[in-house]
């Protein structure tokens, strides 16, 4: 029995880590796989590091949170500091290469550390608003938890109403997904 893949996404409010986790979880569920997603939440309404715990497997998922992720993605300075505790010897640690001054904070025990220029790519090549879709592409390429087709279907389901008004947005989002996958493919 293969164990569930454990994914941890962390970033600032507004970076969309929760919606990425939710879309991937729903896509996995659509594929007939077992998925469990839980956000962290506290009394603060804004300002904290936003963390999403996501697990995808073929058997019912156990505890909703976990100690060590298979892939941990940190999208801000504070997120790097906050997520170190979830990194073990088997963890792929991904962070955005534009985050400065975190060299000393990067986890030392990770299996592999992967900086990707997701913020830069979304800003310069695409649109800052599809940053989270770039991240989504990176996650599915690194983990293989869902297929590209299912990922696109899930994006369509979530944003289809916007695409109807402006079909260019569909193209932009799908391009963002593919770019995210490429970034990981190149880095690996």
């Amino acid at each position, binding site marked *: 029995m293969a164990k569930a893949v454990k994914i941890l996404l962390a970033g600032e409010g507004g970076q969309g880590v929760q919606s990425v986790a*939710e879309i991937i*979880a*729903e896509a996995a*569920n659509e594929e007939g796989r*077992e*998925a*469990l*997603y*839980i*956000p*962290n*939440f*506290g*009394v603060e309404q804004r300002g904290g590091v936003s963390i999403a715990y996501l697990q995808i497997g073929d058997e*019912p*998922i*156990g*505890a*909703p*949170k*976990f*100690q*060590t992720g298979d892939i941990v993605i940190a999208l801000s300075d504070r997120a790097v500091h906050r997520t170190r505790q979830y990194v073990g010897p088997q963890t792929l640690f991904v962070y955005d290469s534009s985050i400065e001054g975190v060299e000393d904070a990067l986890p030392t025990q990770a299996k592999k550390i992967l900086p990707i220029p997701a913020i830069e790519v979304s800003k310069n090549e695409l649109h800052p608003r599809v940053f989270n879709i770039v991240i989504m592409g990176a996650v599915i390429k690194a983990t293989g938890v869902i297929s590209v087709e299912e990922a696109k279907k899930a994006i369509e389901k979530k944003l289809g109403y916007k695409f109807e008004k402006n079909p260019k947005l569909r193209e932009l989002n799908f391009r963002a997904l593919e770019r995210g996958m490429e970034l990981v493919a190149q880095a690996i």
Partner: protein
Amino acid sequence: MPDKPIEGEKRVFMTGNEVVAWAALVAGAEIMYGYPITPQNEIMHYWTRLAPKYGREFLQTEDELSAGFTTVGGVLAGRKAFTATAGPGNTLMQEPMSMAEAMRLPTVVVIQQRGGPSTATVIYSQQEVTMTTLGGNGEGLRIVYSTATHQELFDYTIKAFNTAWKYRFPTFVLGDGYQAKMRESLTIYDPASRGIELVEAEPFLGKPGVPGVDRPPTQLRNTYNVEEELYEVLEGYFKDYEKIAPEVAEYEAFDVEDADLVVVSHGVVSRACKAAVKELREEGIKVGYFRPITLRPLPVDAIRETASKARQFLVVESANGQMARLLKEAAFGCPVEMLSLFKPGVGITAEDVVSRVKEIAG
């Protein structure tokens, strides 16, 4: 107006709070009374979105005391009424639920436990076990289901209404902040499609016939002048409760027959314990899994039987021994040694349980 909220069955992926709203809807709940508190807010949010489509009602009250008493009032009017709360709201809810105990009213309350004491965290705990099972100035004449998955949250919320109206004891569904906020898949269904018959609600007052002549008079009291009068009523209640307890009590267990150590947990923590026991078994370690589904009444016979075979119980909970206290009473006199893994207000993973078992095994 659509006839049935769900036709047949449907696989869905949603949060536990949404699950509760759907379950209450298909269970035939007619009104929810509520006051917002994290992490159960979305039960109210979903209910207020769904209810008007099916002719159901909602009333937001000024606090949980009021939400509890209006739920009592709704039930007295013969309606399937429910409320949901958490933490300090559950504390306030104990006063109206004591009244429901006194009058034997089938109130349904969904609890999504958060950290305690007081405001503590809005996130998660299993620290409302003592309060939910034995709260109020009474004897705990209530029924408490502790759920572990979204499927159970759906199944047992439906069941809670049936249990309450069948046996006339206040009934609680005990979830937690994790179950409230996480998303996972489950199958929601029309109870009739599974052969589940819904127990009908009926008014307590204004029944046909002359009281004392055609039917026994309806006595709805929470006040007594004389000690002996209260004693007599309570004796009757205890007898009723004792009689129904074996019928109501539920548990889940596996690998307990030859186990040296049995891991005992409830609610969401049992998911971690289940995974841990399976993993340890694969390594050839003789461990078992036991989980009471009803925390009140407890499955006493099954606990005692398990406690007579196993050498050790490892009690695992996100509280400082609230379930352990109930277990010790149930297993009193059994030679089992009670060990613990308590993390009050903090989640427990399978890794935590595995390493504690290995530490005990030495």
